[in-house]
């Protein structure tokens, strides 16, 4: 009997330690929240990373922004149950975190500040197969600069639209504009980029 009491008391202590003095109902709510956050991480961490990378263009900064995004999710977790579209909600947080970081670090238009007329360097790495190199790599490098030089209004919907997981509706919700505006701005951005790329090819 005494032994039995000890076991029950021991279980109570363990249970108390695990739940930090919460009642069973509260604990299950917390567990549900943790599960919901873990599901967001499992399903959408790559999307968050890509959004961050689209803005910051550096892997380490994109990873830091991804971590910060999920810490914010944890902080706002009391709101999670009321969120209708978790993916878009998360995308909006990721976008805001990345844009804030870019502003803080003053790197937003770093590429655009370079001489726009500077010829592209051949940035092919030793790992790049020779047959795919110079043209494709140069186009990529040129595109990177030209996108950075676009006005925010066109660049923002374009870079979000290039992320394969993002639908136009989600891009619109992330930026707080309507879907028609996303489509027309992306169309305009693409036109500008194509023209500028064609001009560079013609000039060579």
């Amino acid at each position, binding site marked *: 009997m005494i032994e039995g009491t000890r076991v029950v008391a021991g279980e109570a202590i363990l249970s108390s330690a695990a739940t*930090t003095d919460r009642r069973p109902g509260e604990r299950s709510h917390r567990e549900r929240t*943790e599960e919901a*956050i*873990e599901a967001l*991480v*499992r399903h959408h*961490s*790559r999307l968050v*990373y*890509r959004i961050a*990378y*689209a803005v910051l263009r550096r*892997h380490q900064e*994109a*990873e830091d922004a*991804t*971590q910060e995004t*999920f*810490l914010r999710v*944890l902080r706002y977790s009391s709101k999670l149950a009321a969120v209708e579209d978790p993916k878009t909600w998360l995308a909006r947080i990721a976008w805001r975190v990345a844009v804030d970081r870019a502003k803080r670090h003053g790197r937003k238009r770093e590429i655009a500040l370079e001489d726009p007329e500077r010829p592209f360097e051949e940035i092919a790495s030793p790992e790049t197969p020779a047959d795919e190199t110079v*043209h*494709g790599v140069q*186009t*990529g490098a040129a*595109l*990177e600069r030209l*996108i950075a030089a676009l006005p925010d209004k066109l660049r923002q919907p374009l*870079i979000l639209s*290039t*992320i*394969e997981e993002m639908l136009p509706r989600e891009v619109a919700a992330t930026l707080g504009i309507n879907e028609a505006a996303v489509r027309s701005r992306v169309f305009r951005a*693409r036109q500008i*980029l*194509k023209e500028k*790329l*064609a001009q560079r090819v013609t000039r060579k």
Partner: protein
Amino acid sequence: MADNHHQQADCEFDDALAKYARVEPRAGLEERILANLRAEQARVTNPAG
């Protein structure tokens, strides 16, 4: 002929744009995020450590 050239330019442009966004995080990102979240929760629950 001009149409072909135009189409090829369009394809190259679309490829380059897709590559612009097709980045992959370092392996293990999910686990690093979850570990960070657990550490943050532990810190909030027990600030004294």
